[in-house]
């Protein structure tokens, strides 16, 4: 074909050359994130597997100790993630999808652990602290935090059932109080995130199930009548 082979315009070439390098850069950033996230996932899986032992009536302190050790590891990993982002400010949400699901799981584990230790909800700022996150630079997204809390709530019915089987008849009362307050606090939010809204709807069933366990214990006169130990940690009586 006559004249078919003249080369394209230089500005076009230059632009695509630039794109190429930018896309490579973004790709390698993503690879770095992926590597860290894989480790986060793996650490949190181990932590999860360890925490599952509370359902088997293992001495709680021992379970907690192991899990606490892994928090340090997670902190290190999130620190690495934050460092990666220090180089590209303003792009937190560009890659958010790459780590949010794992972070929600991490939050749920931290919150469950914290609750076992203190009987209280792990606050957003406390979660950030535990992971060494810093809101102004690389913080914990609020919706990720809330979803993580919902995941934690999903563990409650199983925990209560197994505690009662193991002979702790006061557990349902404590958990019920905790979940009732949590549920009430959530209800005040006008949730627009569909996933979060759906997860929150699930919390209603957790609450209902815990109410029923509490009922089962209470109607049989098994619940402790005294109310002495107050609120400090759910698992004190154990071990």
């Amino acid at each position, binding site marked *: 074909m006559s004249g078919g082979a003249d080369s394209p315009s230089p500005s076009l070439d230059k632009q695509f050359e630039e794109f190429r390098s930018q896309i490579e850069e973004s790709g390698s950033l993503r690879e770095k994130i992926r590597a860290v996230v894989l480790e986060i*996932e793996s650490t949190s*899986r*181990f932590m*999860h*597997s360890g925490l*599952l*032992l509370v*359902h*088997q009536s293992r001495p709680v302190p021992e379970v907690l100790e192991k899990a606490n050790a892994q928090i340090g590891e997670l902190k290190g990993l999130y620190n690495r993630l934050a460092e990666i982002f220090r180089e590209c400010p303003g792009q937190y949400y560009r890659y958010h999808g790459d780590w949010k699901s794992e972070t929600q799981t991490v939050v749920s584990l931290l919150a469950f652990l914290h609750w076992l230790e203190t009987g209280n909800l792990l606050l957003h700022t406390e979660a950030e602290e535990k992971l060494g996150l810093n809101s102004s630079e690389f913080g914990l997204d609020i919706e990720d935090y809330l979803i993580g809390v919902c995941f934690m709530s999903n563990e409650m019915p*199983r925990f209560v*059932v*197994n505690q*009662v*089987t193991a002979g702790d*008849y006061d557990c349902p009362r404590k958990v019920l109080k905790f979940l009732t307050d949590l549920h009430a606090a959530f209800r005040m939010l006008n949730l627009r995130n569909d996933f979060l809204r759906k997860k929150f709807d699930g919390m209603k069933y957790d609450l209902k199930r815990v109410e029923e*366990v509490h009922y*089962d*214990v209470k109607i*049989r*006169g*098994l619940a402790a009548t005294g109310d002495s130990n107050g609120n400090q940690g759910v698992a004190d009586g154990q071990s």
Partner: protein
Amino acid sequence: VRTMGSTSESSSSSFKDAFGNYADYLNNLNEKRERVIKASRDITVNSKKVIFQVHRISKDNREEVLDKAEKDLAAVTEKYMSKLVKELQGTDFWKLRRAYSPGVQEYVEAATFCKFCRTGTLLNLDDINATLLPLSDPSVEPLQINVLDYLLGLADLTGELMRLAIGRISDRELEYAEEICQFVRDIYRELTLIVPHMDDSSDMKLKMDTMLQSVVKIENACFSAHVRGSEYMSLPGSSEPSSFLLG
């Protein structure tokens, strides 16, 4: 003019020969796949029967029921697993895995179910594979069930264990139920660490959800049995629980 004959003789004939080979290869492969699928269906059906046989267990007929189940299982091995063994060798184990995987999974389910009821322990993959060795001609590489099919079968086992546990509780064998509960929990926990790394884990992820439901069902059943027992203890005048509970 456009038939194959008109190309230069040599090139055309090698071309023709080659496609003749490809055709043979595909025909053989498809026929083998069909035979493997049929063998797999036989294994499935008969392993399911073994599972049903085990479920016929109760407090008094334990030995007799398990003896028959084990005999039936041995028959499945000899009669149907041996067919698989005959068909498969070398790279076929993986190439045709989808054709036989359902049968092998069900077989694993049946074998581990028998074993758990007999001993309360998990039948290991190596032990299953050892029973398959005698089926092979010693000259060829023996059929070995792979880890993935073993784990998939194990996941289904937990469903059967759940059914067993519910039945045991109705029969007031609470301790047995708690043993099952513990066993299923252990399997579940071990699997949580493995599943994410499995080849093509989507099937297994679904099964993990079902397994968690099974665990919860057993836990709930143990819970209600326990709570009822406790109520009895706390009732006035119930000093001899054991005699009644076992009555």
